[in-house]
């Protein structure tokens, strides 16, 4: 085991080494640009020093030459002052003028040369600026590349680190198995690989199941809500229909219950059915067998089975957890380990019993001799011999998980079977047409009739107070008449 882990550690070191050298190389690329700029600057400085020196020399020479010329001119002025003859004066003045012109000419030449130098310097300056601009661009480019390369390397390192725990487990346990007998080796390895993948896929499967379950629930809820609304409206319509029929003196028949049957989901019933179907498939085997009581699982057996499971599957429990559990009692250790195991394998508490039974039964599926063994030992009722052989726990658990997954899948898929959409369509159509065309016509006719009836009744109601008034007047007048008649009778 130590060999393989060491190899892994070396790989890590290599990667770190690579990253460090990458960092160094890329940084050097960037700083080299600066060094090159420094070199250029040094050249420029030395060039400038030389130029300054040369110019200084030239200016000095020029000053000296100029000084000489000026001396000559000054001497000339003293001669001029001596001359009186016009022609001589003229010639001397001319020569003075020439000398002055020569001095000025020299100065002008100097100025031109200096100006030309200045122009050259300006061009150099522009060129320099452009070169600096390019160097800065190059520097930025290299820095950008550095960022990209380094971040790629860091990302690789990160992914390597993430895979590390699984790798170590895999490596260490494959090497552990190398120490055992080679017969079961391949099978064990396959089982181990299976478990590792199931561990890794666990979250993905869980989220898939969650989303499909969420969708199913939503669909059911919507269906139920629509159904309620529709049935309410339908009943209302039917009630009105019956009233109208009664009014018109027609016979009204309530549409049959089958009319209103909904092909929608009936959750509670189905699930219970499914549970019942899955259970027996596992427990069917318990029907066969010898007279030994198998259906019952004493708690003792359960504990022993679970302990065995923990021991064998201990490698699925995290190192840290195991260290934490070390000071606790064996029982407590087992329960906590079981919890974490179940979390990892995606099983729930209720599956515990099924798992235990399955493990016990697994033995039976192995072969004849095991049955014979069981028969032999049944007399002694030695419970421990009924327990599964530790070496077989891995494949047994694998079988159980496969079946468990299948059943869960079936359960979830049964709750929304290949929906018979035609049946549902028919249902909605039926409810939509619960009041047929004929009935509608009937209702229209009834409406008209009843309206007329209403008019008549309204007229009557308007006339009622009049008639009442007339009747009252009538009675009054009759009374008066009676009075008069009775009074006249007395007179006669």
């Amino acid at each position, binding site marked *: 085991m130590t060999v393989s882990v060491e190899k892994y550690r070396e790989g890590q070191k290599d990667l*770190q*080494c690579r990253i*460090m*050298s990458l*960092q*160094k190389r890329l*940084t*050097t690329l960037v*700083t*080299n640009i*600066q*060094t*090159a700029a*420094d*070199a250029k*600057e*040094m050249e420029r400085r030395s060039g400038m020093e030389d130029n300054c020196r040369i110019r200084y020399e030239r200016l000095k020479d020029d000053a000296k030459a100029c000084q000489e010329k000026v001396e000559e001119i000054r001497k000339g002025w003293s001669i001029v002052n001596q001359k009186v003859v016009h022609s001589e004066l003229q010639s001397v003045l001319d020569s003075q003028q020439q000398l002055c012109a020569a001095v000025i000419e020299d100065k002008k030449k100097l100025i031109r040369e200096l100006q030309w130098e200045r122009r050259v310097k300006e061009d150099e300056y522009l060129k320099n600026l452009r070169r600096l601009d390019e160097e800065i661009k190059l520097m930025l480019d290299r820095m950008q590349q550095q960022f990209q390369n380094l971040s790629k390397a860091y990302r690789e390192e990160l992914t390597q680190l993430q895979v590390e725990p699984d790798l170590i487990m895999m490596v260490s346990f494959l090497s552990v198995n190398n120490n055992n007998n080679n017969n079961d080796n391949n099978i064990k390895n396959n089982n181990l690989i299976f478990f590792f993948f199931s561990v890794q896929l666990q979250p993905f499967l869980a989220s898939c199941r969650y989303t499909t379950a969420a969708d199913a629930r939503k669909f059911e809820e919507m269906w139920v809500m629509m159904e309620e*609304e529709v049935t309410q409206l339908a009943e209302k319509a039917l009630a009105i229909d019956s009233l109208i029929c009664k009014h018109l003196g027609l016979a009204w028949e309530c549409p049959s219950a089958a009319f209103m049957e909904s092909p929608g989901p009936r959750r509670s019933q189905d699930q219970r059915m499914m549970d019942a179907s899955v259970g027996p498939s596992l427990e069917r085997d318990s029907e066969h067998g010898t007279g030994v009581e198998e259906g019952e699982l004493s708690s003792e057996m359960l504990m022993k089975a679970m302990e065995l499971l923990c021991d064998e599957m201990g490698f699925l429990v995290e190192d840290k957890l195991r260290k934490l559990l070390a000071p606790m009692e064996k029982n407590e250790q087992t329960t906590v380990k079981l919890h974490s195991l179940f979390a990892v394998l995606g099983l729930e508490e209720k599956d515990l019993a099924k798992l235990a039974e399955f493990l016990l039964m697994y033995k039976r599926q192995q072969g004849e001799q095991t049955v014979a063994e069981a028969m032999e030992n049944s007399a002694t009722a030695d419970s421990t011999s009924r327990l599964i052989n530790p070496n077989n726990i891995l494949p047994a658990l694998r079988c159980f998980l496969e079946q468990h997954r299948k059943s869960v899948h079936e359960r979830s898929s049964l709750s929304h079977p290949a929906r018979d959409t035609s049946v549902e369509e028919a249902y909605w159509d039926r409810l939509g047409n619960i009041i047929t065309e004929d009935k509608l016509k009937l209702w229209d006719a009834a409406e008209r009739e009843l309206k007329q009836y209403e008019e008549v009744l309204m007229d009557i109601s308007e006339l009622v107070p009049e008639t009442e008034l007339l009747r009252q007047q009538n009675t009054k007048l009759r009374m008066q008449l009676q009075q008069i008649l009775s009074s006249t009778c007395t007179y006669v």
Partner: protein
Amino acid sequence: NMRRIIAEYLDWSLATVSSLSNLSLQCIVNNFEERPIYEELTSSEKDFIQNRVSLSLPLHFAANVFPDGVYWKRCCEQKWKVCDVSNYGESWKRMFFERQLENIIELFVPGITEPKTVLDMVTLCKDHIKKLNIAQLLPPVKEPQTEDEEQASELTLANDDDKSGMDHFDFRILLDKLTNLEELHLVYKVKSCGMNFEWSMFEMTNRDCESLAKALKSCKTLKLFRLHLSHLEDKKCRLLVKYLLDHPSLRTLDFSHNVIGDSGARAIGKLLTKSKLEILNLYDNNIGGPGAKAIAHALSKNTTLVSLNLCLNRLKDEGGQAICKALLNNKTLLHLQLGANGVTWLTVLSLSSMLAQNNTLKSINLSCNTLGEVGGNALEEAMSHNTSVTECNIHLTDIEERRVSVINQMVWNNQFRKQETNPREKNTENAN
């Protein structure tokens, strides 16, 4: 059941009525200036207010009410295009006030701008200013001279007294009030002066220097001072150093890209002995052998300096050898940069003998010096016995390729070995 009506009632509005708390918060936002209700709110309510309150609130008011948060982030993003808050200690309030103050100082025209504008801002924010990076300092506006005056000024020699009319911003009014200032970056230049270029725009006057020096002395929390590209020559360097001696908190001094010569270097050597400087940067100056000797003398007795950058000076072998000899006694310097100084194999010999004894020096930069084969040989010899140097820059030193790679390999081994014992040490090269 109400939901089902939506499809049937065509004029149903989907906008739900806000909760009462939201409505009241919105009311608070609308009337925030008259009645600032802030402290009593919960933190999510405070965030709501900060997100929606108007950005044109008077600054003194906002500075007192809002602590660092979204309000200042909004202010910054409204004012400036690029906002990287990691340069300001992850504090938006700090970024806002620092950049505001920098802006005010950069646009301050001496003689025209009222110092009051600076002082008002300072009273608002003096606790939040930790770093100032001032990229421009304007000279006073020059009155257009008549032709006579121009001719007169051309003929007379410019002397220092005339230049006093070009004093820049006086930092004495500012630095003693910034009680949290830790970093000050200055450069005496005028950005985008275009064709109005004048040399006086790119240098300090003597009076500038003196007032700056006094201001620096009054700032007792300053840790980093950088004055670059300002044509700082010996005289002004000495003046500044005079006031920086025994400064309580200064740790980093950066005078790069100036024209300091030997006399200024001597002053800096004195500063090294009378302060606790850790980083000294004199890149691109005019320091020669004598100046380097003064610095070396200080170095041999110094116990705080960690990084020294003398690249691009005129040290030559005289200066280079002096520095290397000084490091025989120095156990604290980690980074030494002597690139582009005209040193040759003679300095490398001193360096080798130093490296045999010194095992604290971590990085060396000898790039851009003609070391030649002799120098390369000596360096290879030295590196084979040394285990502490983890960075060695010998780019452009005229040493043959094969030897360069050998030396680099040895340095790499040192670095790798260190990495094993100290995993994940950050690779900070003291580049400029």
